[in-house]
């Protein structure tokens, strides 16, 4: 049996990769993908604990979490598409996008 730590370490690595991507990448689509990575890291944690504790609730949560993530991505992509239509860019540090703040 694979020890529990392996799963948790995988999740941690995935989360850190995601966080790194969110903070450093300038392309908004990549940032969104990184957010998905972080979410999935959390999902792995859920599944892991569910499996090791013989508790089905964790798996149910994951289903929920995945569907919410899907909805969130749909909204995010929709915003991005509109921003792209208006400003012709998806670069986050482009002045055309940062000028949307105030």
């Amino acid at each position, binding site marked *: 049996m694979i020890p529990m730590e392996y799963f948790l370490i995988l999740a941690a690595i995935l989360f850190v990769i995601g*966080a790194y991507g969110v*903070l450093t990448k300038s392309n908004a689509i990549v940032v969104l993908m990184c957010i998905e990575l972080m979410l999935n890291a959390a999902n792995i944690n859920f599944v892991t604990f569910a499996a090791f504790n013989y508790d089905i609730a964790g798996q149910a949560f994951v289903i929920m979490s995945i569907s919410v993530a899907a909805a969130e991505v749909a909204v995010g992509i929709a915003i991005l598409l509109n921003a792209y239509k208006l400003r012709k860019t998806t670069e*986050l540090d482009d002045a055309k996008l940062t000028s949307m703040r105030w």
Partner: protein
Amino acid sequence: MIAEFTWLIPFIPMMCFLMIGIFGRKTPEKGGYIAIAGALLSFLIALAISIEYLGSDEFANGIAIESSIRWFEIGDYTLNLGYYVDGLTCVMMLFSSFISTLIFIYSIGYMHDQGERKNRYYAEVSLFLTGMLGLIVSSNFLELFIFWEVMGLCSYLLIGFWSFRHDNGDEASANAASAAKKAFLVTRMGDVCLMGGLFIFLNLFHSLDYSAMFESVEAVAAANPGLFTLALCLMFGGVIGKSAQFPLHDWLPDAMAGPTTVSSLIHAATMVKAGVYLVARGFPLYVQDVNVMLFVAIIGGITAFIAATMALNNMNIKKVLAYSTISQLGYMILSLGAGGYLWALGYEELGALGFFAGCFHMMNHAFFKALLFMGSGSVIHGCGTEDMRLMGGLFKKMKITATTMLFGCLAIAGIPIFSGFWSKDLVIDTAMNAFNNGADGAAIWFLILWLLAVITAFMTAFYMFRMWFMTFMGEPRENAQHCHGESPKTMTTPLIILAGFALVSGLFMFFGLTDMLAFEGEAIDGVEHGIELFTNPFTYMTIILAILGIGIAYMMYVKKTMDPGKFNKNGESWLYIALTKRWWFPDLYNQISWKLGYGVAKGVNYIDRQIVDGTVNGLSSAVVGGGDVMSKVQTGHVQDYSSVVLFGVSVLSVLILVTFALLGGF
């Protein structure tokens, strides 16, 4: 008990006001008949109530019929609404509603060609009547003050009735708007004083009901003499404003810019009578303080004299009448002041005589002044000018108007049998009594006031007949030549009725009026005092002076044997200029309002803009600036935000871990 329906007296004109305002346009004369019906109905109810009250036990015992409902209460201050009927109320409401009815009838003829604007006119005069009648029947000073203000508003609206003719060059109506503003603002000064006085009274008495105040007045006046005197003076300030007493008298001549019927209403039946009524109503309060009564008398005497001088050389028929009104109001105030002074010194019968003389003169004046104003309105209607230099010789064309106005002039000049004679000589008599019985220092004042009153009587006879002769006798001048004859019947009928009253209303004192105008049950004997007038040498003196005044006017303006130009150096003597400049009172008002009012306004403006607004603006710009600075934190870079979030979460996690570790692990 029909007295229970006293509230209907002001209520009916109020309903008329609403009816005329809402659908008066659709009725004939744009609501004029509704106004007449309302005033007449009020008069009939007042008559019924008076008859009932005069037959009741209350009247025999000298107490008032009174009823109030509680309006509101603040702590132990109770404020009521109600009615209060005594002899004074009866006299006031009878002549007010009666004369108003006649004026409204007259308006049908006088305002006939005013078109749609008549609707507004009739609505406003109905509200005006509401104000006066409400003021008369109210049972406490707060209620009185409310109706007092209603009248102030209506006088403003009606004096400015012709403000649309603003710039047509007609001197008399050129500036109706500014006259209305002047009337409103000047009376407002008095009203603020009155309000201040009422605040003090409420504080002292814990109630403003007449009955409650009159009961406890002696104890309260003894407990707080300073405050009480101050409140009386402030209350008299309201009278000075409303009844156009010196030094706030100057709005009344300007108020002539309104329609003549309105002048008649203001001068005879309502408005300026309210001030005198307030003194008469508050008489039990006033007599507590001798010095205030002396002050009141002095103001009245000065007013009577100054106003009479200004009427001497005025060329505007309405302004002469306006000054005569101020002068006669001065007589009333003088009489009340002198009577109250005597009462306060303990001469109860003489005091009651002064009270009676003042109220009696108010009633007589209402009849003959309404007559004179409506007569002048008839003249103006006929020849289209107010300038007496353009009239003359109208007697042949307007026989009824001329004769009735002659009655009015004889009454105001104080020729025996006519009403003005009786009351005016009682007033002069009262001033003499006060001189004879007054305390050392004050008595000399009453001698001066008596002299002023006598001289005023002479001047009154002169200027009234100057007006009459210039208008109706001599050569027909410019406008008089194309005068189109006598006014319609709606206008002459009220004149004839009022002429009858100007002739006989003075005789009422022999038929029980003295009982109605008794003060605190102290009724004077009308017959005795009427006869006494003819045993008094001073009475003959005033009669001779009055006849002398008429004679001089006759020689100057009919016979032309005496040239007025000789006395005024053809209009260049300083006195003549002073009189045409109205003793510089308008200039004084302007100076005060420019120098003082404008100065204060500038100071207030500075405080408001710099300090008050400055604080508010400073606060808001500080907030805006701070917001501007802080908004720079929002870089717009999503990554900046998320790194801050991540940083915060990391710090929190570490903190939690450390805390748990320190507390002894998991």
